[in-house]
């Protein structure tokens, strides 16, 4: 205890209430896309610039087709919002995205933003209610641009993105820049866990008339709570099943029959308990469980809770005024603190869900420990592979061809190493697919480096094995769409490409041999076509580029290698032969001669 919200989220406490005030004001000023305010911090005299966004309670600005207005986002300005394994791109609410796109042009040009950047002032994007999603997407937009990191504060914001969205945020290390304040019963932060329906419209209509005509209190709708919270509960239970390691095989079948909301919380959540205490939670699974369970019906009757779920959406300013000054804040992460949970009024079942959420994180840490042990083994195997490769050069054949022939005991041992390595990387791959490793795993420098080293050294052997057994006859070429190329290599390649901000597929130097082999086969099969000629030229260009940046080892140029033999045997139509390659082969030959002489 003893910490304030500001400490826990890394932002001065003085900013929060003014930001909330501005956010509410902006939300109710539909004529302006956003409002800006500079806030002076008393103790160090620095300034924080807050941008707050206007809102809309029109159903079309909340929902859309397909259900849940699901829209894949990972393009252009949001390139990081994707999974680096098979999880696909992040999904966001398309209506929110559209509203963001309406704003971003003017926001980027705003002179206040330029000024804040020049003067190195902290920028905060804030949003209340439907202004929240715009604040979130704007923050992401500038995080992607690698400008000085902005902060995001939302108050009673609906959910914006799915599980991959949150995963990508945590992978990039951006999660901590987002803080969302949520009242215990406020319906709006939960509304996106339920599909759009007449109940949604009732709620939005109510708020619309409330915000439009500030002095008149419209009649609150009723009967929506059961529907919205029922659907939210379905989502929470489905996630709880996963957290709890549910092994009932019916789960997958059932899931295929029901459409749950894809949206999940991400970032830091601050729950306002209503009695002056704030609970700060970062574990996204725990946030979801609390979001649903703390708004469950207790002793009070449904109508009472239903009314409260509407009223609390308008209570942020008064609630925050009361509790921000106090140091009555508890961080849930690192173990459920029973006292605080009493404030949230969670049931024993909810407590079990939280424990499962915590245990899930522990499991991921344990898996990481296990993988760390693998990394040492991988290093050892790779060192053996490196020696194997070095030895193979002496025969002027290269390890690719030596392995393909499988004549020597060394080749056999390399094969066993190849499989040992495949086993370890496949296990990593499976864990990643199931989100069983920490979110930032694929972003860790040592992992990317080791993976890349492995891919460049060992994938040629997988290719050699593939073409040695003519597997292309059964499965088609080694590299085609979702073809036979082992996924572990696809994943590892993607990590590097993502890290270097290069397009998907641009780092395929480990596929050099597959291109060569397949070309050889295709020339025999189809004859010499224009398309083939283009592919040959591509291989030549790749070779020169990759040898140049040392991502491909020059042993492919050894006199007896499959590549050199294939290249020399190219039909006379292939002209002009690249002098550059001829020269590279010559240089290699010289080096080997000198090398063996020494």
């Amino acid at each position, binding site marked *: 205890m003893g910490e304030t919200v500001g400490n826990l989220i890394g932002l001065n406490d003085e900013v929060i209430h003014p930001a909330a005030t501005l956010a509410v004001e902006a939300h109710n000023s539909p004529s302006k896309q956003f409002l800006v305010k500079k806030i002076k911090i008393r103790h160090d005299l620095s300034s924080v610039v807050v941008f707050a966004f206007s809102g809309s309670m029109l159903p079309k600005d909340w929902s859309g087709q397909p259900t849940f207005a699901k829209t894949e986002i990972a393009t252009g300005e949001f390139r990081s919002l994707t999974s680096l394994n098979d999880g696909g791109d992040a999904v966001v609410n398309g209506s929110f995205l559209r509203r963001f796109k309406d704003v971003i042009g003017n926001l980027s040009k705003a002179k206040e933003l330029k000024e804040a950047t020049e003067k190195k002032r902290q920028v905060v994007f804030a949003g209340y209610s439907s202004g929240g999603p715009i604040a979130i997407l704007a923050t992401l937009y500038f995080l992607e641009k690698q400008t000085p990191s902005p902060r995001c504060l939302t108050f009673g914001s609906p959910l914006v993105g799915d599980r991959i969205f949150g995963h990508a945020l945590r992978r990039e290390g951006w999660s901590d820049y987002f803080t969302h304040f949520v009242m215990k019963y406020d319906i709006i932060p939960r509304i996106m866990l339920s599909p759009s329906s007449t109940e949604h419209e009732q709620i939005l209509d109510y708020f619309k008339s409330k915000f439009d005509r500030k002095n008149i209190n419209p009649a609150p709708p009723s009967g929506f709570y059961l529907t919205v919270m029922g659907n939210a509960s379905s989502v929470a239970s489905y996630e709880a099943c996963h957290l709890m390691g549910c092994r009932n*095989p*019916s789960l997958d079948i059932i899931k295929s029959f029901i459409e749950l909301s894809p949206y999940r919380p991400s970032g830091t959540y601050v729950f306002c308990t209503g009695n002056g205490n704030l609970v700060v939670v970062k574990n996204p699974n725990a946030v979801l469980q609390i979001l649903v369970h703390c708004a469950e019906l207790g002793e009070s009757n449904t109508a009472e809770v239903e009314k409260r779920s509407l009223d609390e959406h308008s209570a942020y300013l008064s609630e925050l005024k009361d509790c921000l000054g106090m140091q009555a804040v508890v961080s849930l992460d690192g173990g459920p603190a029973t006292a605080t949970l009493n404030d949230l009024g969670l049931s*024993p079942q909810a407590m079990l869900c939280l424990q499962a959420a915590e245990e899930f994180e522990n499991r991921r840490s344990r898996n990481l420990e296990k993988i760390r042990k693998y990394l040492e083994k991988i290093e050892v195997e790779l060192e053996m592979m490196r020696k194997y490769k070095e030895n193979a050069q002496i025969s002027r054949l290269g390890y690719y061809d030596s392995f393909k022939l499988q004549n020597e005991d060394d080749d056999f041992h390399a094969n066993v190493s190849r499989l040992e390595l495949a086993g370890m990387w496949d296990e990593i791959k499976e864990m990643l697919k199931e989100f069983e490793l920490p979110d930032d795993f694929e972003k860790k420098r040592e992992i990317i480096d080791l993976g890349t080293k492995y891919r460049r050294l060992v994938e040629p052997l997988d290719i050699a094995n593939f073409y040695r057994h003519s597997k292309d006859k059964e499965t088609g070429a080694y590299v085609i769409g979702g073809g036979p190329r082992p996924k572990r290599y696809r994943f590892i390649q993607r990590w590097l490409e993502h890290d270097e901000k290069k397009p998907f597929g641009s780092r395929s130097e480990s596929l050099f041999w597959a291109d060569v082999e397949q070309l050889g086969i295709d020339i025999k099969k189809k004859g010499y076509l224009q398309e083939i000629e283009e592919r040959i030229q591509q291989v030549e260009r790749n070779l020169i580029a990759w040898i140049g940046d040392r991502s491909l080892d020059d042993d492919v140029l050894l006199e007896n290698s499959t590549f050199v033999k294939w290249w020399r045997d190219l039909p006379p139509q292939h002209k002009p032969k690249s002098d550059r390659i001829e020269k590279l082969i010559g240089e290699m030959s010289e080096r080997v001669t000198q090398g063996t002489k020494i």
Partner: protein
Amino acid sequence: MKRRRMNQVPLFSSAGELANMLVTSNLIEAAWAKIPELQRGQSALPSSVQTMVDHPTPKCTIVVFAPSPDSTQDALSQGGDLVPYPKFDFLCTKGCPSVSINRAALTLFTPLYDHLSGLKDELNKREGQLIITGQSLGGSIASLFTLFLLSSMDKESKCRPICITFGSPLIGNFGLQHSHWNSFFLHLVSDKDPLPTLFLPSGRSAPTSSHSQATAYKPFGTYLLCSELGCACFDDPDFIFKFLTVASSEVAGGLQVVVDYGEILRNLKYRAICKGPRLVGERLTDPFSAGIVMELKTIGIDPAKHNIDIGRMEKDARDLTWKTNKASEAKKLNDRKINMVWLEWYRKKAEDVKKDYYDCFRNERFNIEAKIQWHMEDLTTYWEDMVAEAERKPQKEGASFRTGWLQAGTTYRRMVEPLDIAVFYKDGGRDYINSERSQHYKLLEQWYEEAAKPPTSEELDSKKQKVSVLLTEDSCFWAHVEEAILSCKSLTNANSTPELRESSWNNLVKFGEYVMEQIENYAVSPEIFLKDSCFMTWWGEYKVYIASPSNPCSLRFIQFIDFMKTGRYGVYGRSEVP
């Protein structure tokens, strides 16, 4: 309550959460909604079981079965005994060699059989979701129809079925615990409903059902068990049986009571968003126990009073968690690949010194045989498990489960069994095939034979080209050779009785025919003809014997002897065979 050991990771019970997810989704409601509708419209119609096929959305089909109240009473009065029903023998497993179905359900199902056959074919062609449902005996028909449908579905089928029953009695003696089919069944049972417990020993069994038969009933699928307080999902047949037994002793009301599952669902849905009652005083030291005790109490089971072994439930859950881990599954598969690579390498080493690998292994020529044997053991354990798992599945499903790995299993059998044979005969064993051969090899071979088609002439041709790199097809080939060697010894042994001589002689003639057949089909590897192989050693002895003047029989017309004597084997496996 037992404390969990320090090094064990905490486990959770998700029975309540799964149930909660179900009742808060609209799936069960969608299924239920059609049942009262059909039941209401029924009285006007003469047919005893009403069937309705509805398409609420283009991608969703609902099939509802509703027997009329009269026919239900009629069928129930027939009794709860189990009747053998061979039409459903596709559900047979090792543990359940013949399928029996409850008489009441059959009474309603059998007259519908032809009609349902047509419906099944029609639905099989449809794409998308298919919900099959019914209440009480209507649910039994729904279950039977779903099984019927599953048995005829192939991998390409785009139809995704789920069967949801409301208060249906147990159906038959077969279990689906080891079958993927298990996951397609969802049974709602209220603790107030007398019907699901009808055929249990303590239930109001109809007079004809005997106790032993009643206990032969096996629940399958997932049960959503509900009470006034809430609900929980279970798929452990023993526990479900237990629940039904407890419920049957406590349920009030006659069979005429028709439980309104619509009302039950409304209550459960409301309960789902309420803070549950504090059912457990002691807190969270062991989340599994805390969770399961709450879940059990919710559905009216008191672990102490009803003698529920929480420790065992936890152990089962832990075993299952461990077994279904995808990452370690991937690792295991890869380890088996490594084992095979070692064996391939051993075979290659033998080839390098121009020996056959059977001979090398039998005579331990490379001093690494112990290591190879270690890899063999890994493989055998793995394949024994695979075979056992296939056997636990219903026949039909087992067959499609096998197709995925039968090729790998065959390669394993051809690679490893000869080495097992080598060890066996080296240790002085006799008659491997009848006395020693492991069941899993027999099944692997049997399944391979069942799946194999006679080769086309093209395939035979390509086999001819490749025979030098292929493994000998009959994994017992070397056992036949060893037996031939023993027969040869008996024949030349002066002490042998005439009977023994004769049977040995016959064996050898048969062996010759067998080898010739293998050769003609390019089914043996040419390595058997390598100098000093067991086969050639045998041939050396046999050749001497048949050439000796003491040999009473004429062998001139035997093709095999001709093939060997003329040395044609020398070119077997090269591209051209004279």
